[in-house]
């Protein structure tokens, strides 16, 4: 089941620079997308989400962009901070089609270099 893909298993970014994490999906029924952050031995923590009726959502240092035609979304973190070092998961659901389960990507490990 590869409906949500994160093709970069890891990413290293200098502190203060922009981190860009990418996610691709194949299921056209997905209409709600989320990013979660996960530290070791903890559960996924919700960061930011976007509905398919929008193409951008911003919350502080975090911005999510959605390109429906390309079936691609990205998470921008600017400026990156050492506390941002974690594994980031992209997730999607098809709420509008009565499907509330989240389908997750494999995650990208982000390391912020001081």
């Amino acid at each position, binding site marked *: 089941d590869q409906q949500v893909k994160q093709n970069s298993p890891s990413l290293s970014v200098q502190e203060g620079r922009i981190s860009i994490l990418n996610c691709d999906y194949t299921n056209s029924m997905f209409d*709600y997308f*989320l990013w*979660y952050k996960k530290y070791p*031995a*903890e*559960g*996924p*923590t*919700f960061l930011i*989400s976007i*509905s398919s009726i929008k193409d951008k959502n911003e919350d502080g240092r975090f911005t999510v962009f959605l390109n429906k035609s390309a079936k691609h979304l990205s998470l921008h973190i600017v400026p990156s901070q050492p506390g941002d070092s974690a594994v980031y*998961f992209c*997730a999607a659901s098809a*709420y*509008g089609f009565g*499907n*509330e*389960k*989240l*389908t*997750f*990507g*494999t*995650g990208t490990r982000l390391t912020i270099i001081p």
Partner: protein
Amino acid sequence: EPEVTQTPSHQVTQMGQEVILRCVPISNHLYFYWYRQILGQKVEFLVSFYNNEISEKSEIFDDQFSVERPDGSNFTLKIRSTKLEDSAMYFCASTARKNNQPQHFGDGTRLSIL
């Protein structure tokens, strides 16, 4: 900030034994979920629960699995006869409203089957 709590944090069980994983969702949430993550793999949906009924379940959620909300605060996942392949992190999640609302996760229970 309200959070989802899960107990125990680690459960070690002999194969064939029954195990119950417990969750206390966020108090005003109405929709409840179980996910699992086998080591090195994606987070996978198991089951969703609303109004004392299962609303959706995955292929993984076979007859060995059951969920229950025994009182107004707890939400449990029971595995009747555990197998080696049930070893995983099990995450509980909850949300206030089904549509376009993020699911909030607990820190998980690590289940180890010997």
